[in-house]
């Protein structure tokens, strides 16, 4: 930076000085005046104005404080605390809590009625709420409801007085928290309306002439009174909080007075005119003159001022430019007085070290020395010396500085001595510091990267060259030296072609050129070692830059290992026992096949190479071929896929096929390997067949245990079929021998589809038809013939027969039971010869055992069934006989029981009759005597009555009357009339008793009582009907159906008694039906072969079924008491059954009448 010249015009200083002196004096005067005025004004403002306004503020403060006291009292009201106390007890507003709010409500009401000094209500509203917004009391009402969200005055500020300017809520809020157990649980808020406040204030201001201009909260005006000047922000830099402030501006005095104990302040304004009154005349004149002069010279001053401003502007711009440069370059600057050491740094310099300039004060060159790295300090000093000595035009050094936080930053320290002393020593030096930490870091990273690449370059196995475009080697890696045997210095300057075999250099040159042109991508020519041997490589070359110049890059891949691998591959390929092929992709032409392929499939090499698998018809199954191709296309490889291929002569080979598409030198090939598993498959098949056969046989064995005899034949045939199918044969059969005529019969047969059944032709074949066959079987030997053709002359008969049926293979197993051959089971293979395995033979022998057991069981079951049927028939006959005999025995038992009962009753009746007969006898005799006597008495009595009548009533009147009365009293006339009837009835009674006794006697008598004689039953029925007419004539009609019956030999009196009894009973049964006015008694006689029958049927009340069995029991009666003895039917039964060997039975239904039948044998036993 050099010196600068500024253009400054010079004015006549004398004139200007004189004028300025005058003006200066006047200005001083004015200043004095102004000073005094201001002084006075300030004095007034800071004195009286503030005092008075502070007094106003005090009144406001008092007003606020008073309000706060009121609210404070409310917040500590006992009732309110009682509310929270009770609430803490868990009481609800609904039950109990309200009570404690009532007195408080009254206090609120009292506050609301309190009036300000102006006679208006002090508080516009009172609110008591909980901190959660629950409004307890609002004005003079107990609420207990929630407010609209958190109340606006509940906040954390803790201010006791707040001014809120919200819609509908503009004013002062005096708040007092409600504390309960050291917690704020609620708030009491009283609203002082702003209008009221203003009225209060303005009322106070009226006498003072002050204008209230606004309400401040801190320095901010929150409420400005309309129509007043907006007061300025009345603060000073040194204002203490809470102090009154005064500002005099534009002839006005503004005063800001805080209201103590609130965050608010009041602003007042007062004009200077109001303080000092109007201005003096002399001063005005002087002032006018001074003003004119001031204007004139003011112009001068203005011009000078303009010039000065211009110069200052230029200087400022220069300065700014410099600052911008410094700021743009972000450099730190230093100015060093080399001689004194005094140094000036800029902020950026300090910032680089992590300090502020102020923190480094006082700064000097030592400041820098303290921060610089000790190692770099020496370097810096050396650089300084170089510059001081003139060896270097500038000082330039890169060094480290320690930052405040302890880590080092790199700075580029540059400078230059600008001023020299007269002695030629450096005086002032200017310089800059640039932060090059990032650059240093980048350099280090770059160096590290270069090292990495160098290490990689020299450790890689491939050979790398860098040469000129002409081919002169500039650089090669270590692999080149190691593998070619040259030293690095030797290679420098060699040509690329020099490391190729001489014979190939021309070709190599051509290829390299083509590579550079993009026509070739690789050079396969080997390199030549120093010792003359070759190194197989693949070389690639391309153009690049090296140290800024175009160069040729060459990379050679060492193929020596690959060569070895290739040789090994060829050995493996040719000698592998598996079938291997190599074919091209995509045409699949065989390029190479190994020996195993040729030998196994039977081809010559030239028959295969150049052809495809399709042309050779290798694939036996087109589907398999398709699958293989798909897998190869999809995955590029196939692993152990089972495949069947066909040889030259058609033989099919099974194998596990694997293949992979490989790539070599840009071309694709298919390499396949197939392992012959034909024998394995065959063995598997045999094993599978054996297992299946054994399983089938085992199933059959368990199945045959449970089947019934009736299904054995079908099951045998089914089993033959299953076995035959699993073995893959064509016919299976069972033959059984006949012991009687030496024949054999095909009893069971199964044929595969397409094979003709032969069973019906193979019935009763003589055993001599198959001599050899039967001979072997009789010895319990199996016959296993794989090829019928191979049968010898001993089996010529069998051979002819078998071949005539087209049978190629045959297996026959004897069926042995109790060591005796009962038959055989055989299996024929017709469509193809079958090799019988030992397993098959064993299984079939077992099958034979099962079948013979089943057949034998079937025979036994059949015989058993026959025996069972005979037994059942016998059993049925036996049951019928037993039932019949049982019925007879039951009947006999009943009869015996009845007879026994009868006999018992008979004995009883005999005893009773005997006992009764005696007293009846003498009563009867006495009665007869009494009758005779009574008749005599009655005769005499009659004579007395007649005599009395004849006597004169006048002479014997009283006695006559008395006697007459007595006669009437005892009803003598009736007695005499009834005497005969009584006697007659008594006689009848005696006769009845005698008759009953006789009946009982009859009942108890033996059979032999009574003489039998020829008896005409029809006549006796007629006679009995006549006799018993009185018994039925009023109740029933009688029908007698006389049958053509012969005479019988009976005791007439007894049969008569039976008939009488039956007819009387019928009449009485009819009489006992109240719903029937007149019934019917039907009597019928008929005869059967050995008896004469008589049936007496009535339509009376009938006999219930449970009583029918007892009707013949002695003394059993269905009649009312006194209506019968219950002996009639029992006597009748005894007469008919016991005495006459007849039958007696009853047929009846309750309510439908009864029929009594009895029979008398035509020929009576003597």
């Amino acid at each position, binding site marked *: 930076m050099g010196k600068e010249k500024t253009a400054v015009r010079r004015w006549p200083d004398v004139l200007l000085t004189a004028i300025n002196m005058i003006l200066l004096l006047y200005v001083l005067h004015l200043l004095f005046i102004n000073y005094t005025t201001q002084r006075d004004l300030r004095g007034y403002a800071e004195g009286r104005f503030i005092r008075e306004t502070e007094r106003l503020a005090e009144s406001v403060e008092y007003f606020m404080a008073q309000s706060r006291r009121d609210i404070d009292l409310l917040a500590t009201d006992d009732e309110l605390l009682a509310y929270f106390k009770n609430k803490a007890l*868990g009481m609800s507003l609904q039950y*109990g809590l309200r*009570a404690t709010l009532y*007195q408080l409500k009254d206090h609120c009401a009292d506050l609301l009625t309190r009036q300000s000094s102006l006679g208006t209500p002090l508080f516009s509203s009172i609110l008591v709420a909980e901190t959660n917004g629950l409004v307890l009391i609002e004005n003079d009402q107990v609420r207990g409801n929630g407010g609209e969200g958190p109340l606006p005055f509940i906040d954390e500020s803790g201010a006791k007085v707040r001014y809120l300017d919200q819609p509908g809520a503009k004013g002062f809020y005096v708040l007092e928290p409600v504390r309960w157990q050291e917690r704020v649980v609620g708030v009491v808020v009283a609203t002082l309306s702003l209008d009221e406040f203003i009225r209060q204030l303005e009322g106070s201001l009226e006498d003072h002439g002050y204008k209230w201009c606004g309400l401040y909260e801190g320095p901010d005006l929150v409420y400005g009174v309309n129509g007043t000047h907006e007061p300025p922000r009345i603060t000073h830099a040194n204002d203490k909080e809470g102090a009154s402030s005064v500002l005099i501006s534009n002839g006005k005095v503004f005063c800001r007075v805080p209201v103590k104990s609130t965050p608010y302040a009041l602003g007042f304004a007062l004009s200077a005119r109001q303080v000092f009154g109007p201005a003096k005349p002399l001063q005005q004149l002087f002032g006018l003159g001074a003003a004119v002069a001031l204007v004139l010279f003011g112009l001068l001053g203005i011009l000078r001022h303009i010039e000065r401003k211009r110069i200052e502007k230029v200087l400022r711009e220069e300065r700014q430019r410099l600052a911008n440069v410094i700021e743009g370059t972000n450099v730190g600057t230093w100015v060093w007085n080399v001689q004194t050491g005094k140094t000036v740094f800029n902020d950026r310099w300090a910032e680089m070290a992590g300090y502020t300039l102020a923190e480094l004060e006082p700064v000097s060159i030592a400041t820098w020395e303290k921060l610089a790295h000790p190692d770099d300090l020496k370097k810096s000093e050396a650089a300084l010396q170089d510059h001081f000595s003139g060896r270097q035009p500038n000082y330039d050094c890169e060094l480290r500085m320690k930052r405040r936080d302890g880590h080092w930053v790199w700075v580029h320290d540059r400078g230059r001595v600008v001023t020299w002393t007269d002695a030629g020593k450096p005086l002032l030096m200017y310089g800059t510091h640039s932060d090059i930490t990032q650059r240093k870091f980048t350099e280090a990273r770059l160096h590290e990267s270069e090292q990495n690449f160098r290490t990689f370059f020299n450790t890689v196995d491939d050979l790398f060259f860098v040469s000129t475009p002409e081919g002169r080697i500039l650089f090669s890696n270590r692999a080149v030296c190691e593998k070619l045997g040259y030293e690095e210095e030797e290679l420098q300057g060699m040509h690329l072609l020099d490391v190729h075999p001489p014979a190939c250099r021309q070709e190599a040159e051509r290829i390299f050129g083509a590579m550079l042109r993009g026509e070739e991508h690789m050079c396969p020519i080997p390199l030549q070692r120093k010792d003359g041997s070759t190194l197989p490589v693949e070389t690639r070359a391309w153009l690049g830059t090296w140290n800024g110049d175009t160069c040729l890059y060459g990379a050679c891949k060492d193929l020596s290992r690959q060569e070895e691998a290739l040789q090994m591959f060829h050995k493996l390929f040719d000698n592998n026992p598996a079938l291997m092929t190599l074919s091209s992709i995509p045409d699949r032409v065989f390029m190479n096949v190994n020996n195993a392929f040729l030998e196994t499939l039977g081809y010559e090499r030239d028959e295969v190479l150049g052809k495809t698998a399709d042309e050779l018809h290798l694939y036996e199954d087109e589907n398999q071929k398709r699958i293989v191709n798909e897998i190869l296309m999809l995955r590029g490889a196939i692993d152990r896929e089972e495949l069947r291929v066909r040889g030259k002569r058609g033989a099919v080979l099974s194998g596990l096929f694997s293949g992979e598409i490989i790539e070599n030198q840009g071309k694709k090939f298919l390499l396949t390997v197939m392992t012959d598993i034909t024998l394995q498959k065959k063995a598997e098949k045999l094993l599978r067949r054996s297992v299946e056969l054994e399983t089938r046989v085992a199933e059959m064995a368990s199945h045959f245990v449970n089947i019934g005899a009736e299904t054995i034949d079908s099951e045998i045939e089914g089993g033959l079929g299953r076995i035959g199918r699993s073995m893959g044969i064509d016919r299976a059969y069972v033959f059984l021998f006949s012991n009687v005529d030496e024949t054999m019969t095909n009893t069971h047969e199964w044929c595969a589809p397409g094979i003709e059944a032969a069973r019906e032709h193979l019935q009763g074949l003589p055993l001599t038809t198959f001599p050899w066959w039967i001979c072997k079987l009789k010895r319990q030997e199996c016959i296993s013939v794989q090829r019928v053709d191979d049968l010898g002359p001993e089996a010529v008969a069998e051979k002819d027969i078998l071949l005539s049926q087209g049978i190629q293979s045959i297996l026959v197993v004897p069926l042995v039971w109790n060591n005796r051959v009962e038959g055989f089971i055989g299996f024929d293979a017709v469509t193809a010869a079958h090799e019988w395995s030992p397993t098959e033979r064993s299984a079939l022998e077992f099958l034979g055992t099962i079948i013979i057991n089943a057949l034998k069981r079937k025979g036994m079951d059949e015989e058993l069934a026959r025996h069972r049927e005979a037994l059942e028939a016998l059993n049925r006959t036996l049951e019928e006989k037993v039932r019949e005999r049982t019925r007879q025995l039951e009947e006999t038992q009943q009869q015996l029981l009845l007879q026994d009962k009868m006999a018992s009753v008979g004995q009883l009746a005999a005893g009773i009759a005997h006992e009764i007969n005696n007293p009846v006898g003498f009563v009867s005799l006495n009665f007869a005597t009494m009758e005779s006597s009574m008749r005599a008495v009655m005769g005499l009595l009659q004579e007395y009555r007649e005599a009395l009548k004849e006597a004169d009533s006048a002479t014997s009147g009283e006695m006559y009357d008395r006697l007459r009365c007595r006669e009437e009293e005892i009803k003598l006339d009736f007695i005499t009339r009834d005497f005969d009837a009584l006697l007659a009835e008594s006689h009848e009674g005696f006769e009845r008793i005698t008759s009953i006794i006789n009946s009982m006697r009859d009942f108890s008598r033996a059979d032999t009582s009574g003489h039998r004689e020829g008896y005409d039953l029809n006549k006796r029925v007629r006679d009995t009907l006549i006799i018993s007419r009185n018994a039925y004539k009023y109740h029933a009609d009688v029908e007698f159906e006389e049958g053509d019956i012969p005479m019988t030999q009976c005791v007439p009196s007894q049969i008569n008694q039976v008939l009488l009894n039956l007819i009387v009973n019928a009449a009485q049964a009819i009489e006992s039906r109240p719903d029937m006015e007149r019934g019917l008694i039907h009597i019928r006689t008929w005869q059967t072969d050995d008896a004469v029958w008589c049936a007496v049927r009535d339509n009376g009340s009938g006999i219930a079924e449970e009583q029918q069995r007892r009707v013949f029991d002695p003394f059993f009666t269905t009649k009312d008491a006194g209506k019968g003895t219950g002996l009639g039917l029992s006597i009748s039964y005894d007469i008919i059954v016991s005495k006459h060997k007849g039958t007696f039975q009853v047929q009846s239904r309750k309510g439908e009448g009864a029929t009594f039948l009895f029979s008398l044998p035509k020929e009576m036993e003597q």
Partner: protein
Amino acid sequence: MKGTSVLWKAVMMAAFAVGPVRAQEAGDLAQIRERNQLRHLGIPYAHFNTGTGEGLSVELMQRFADFLGVEYVYVPTEWSTVIGDLTGTTVKPTGDDVERIGTCEVKGDVIANGFTILPWREKVVAFSKPTFPTQVWLVVPSESPVSPIEPTGDEALDILATKQVMEGLSVLGKAGTCLDPSLYDVSECGAEERNFSGGLNDLAPALLQGEADTLLLDVPDSLVALVKWPGRIKVIGPMSEQQEMGVAFRQESQELLNAFNGFLRSCMADGSYVELVRKYYPDVFSYYPVFFQ
């Protein structure tokens, strides 16, 4: 029919048997005017009757006497004898029923004392239109482990919840009044009934002195107690549905009853009754605002 006539005869006989004795001392409106006295049977109870000649009931009866144009006479009585003093028949409540156990002298014409209208009382006296709302609450000392219920807004559920907390606790009440534990199935709830022999105004202090675990207290007394002993007692919840108090007359004093109902109607209409209530129970309006509308 026959049975009913017999019963009617028995009733009439009983009536005639008692009537002649009571007719000498009882009286309907005419007799009161003739005697020129309205005898107010009173028992110190909350702010209904402070016992010093003041109280809502006392002042109401004084006004009623003025309304009738007769002299007001205060007759002190007790809860256990107040009905007998009015009707001349001593009674014993058994649940919602009442057992007449004897006769006694009639000493007053009206019971006005914060007298709760109960079913068993309605069987022996005639109540006026309701004059005051009330309810029976269960109250415990503040240190009791029993906690107040959470009001559900459903009175029946609140009562059930309150009764549930009583199990295993002793409940202090006053027999023969609306605070009789037997009226609220206290023992069925698994609580022990205890009868307090002192005055209703002493119930809350009795609880604080530990005479029982819990206390049945009506709303007027509860309001007084909550203010008198804030933080010492807590209200658990309601034991009864909202009840009403009324002024009781003899069942045969229909004229007097009608006169009082008319008087009460006029007081309510001109607001003087509300003012009277506000004087003694200013807080009741917030609990029962509907009652006094």
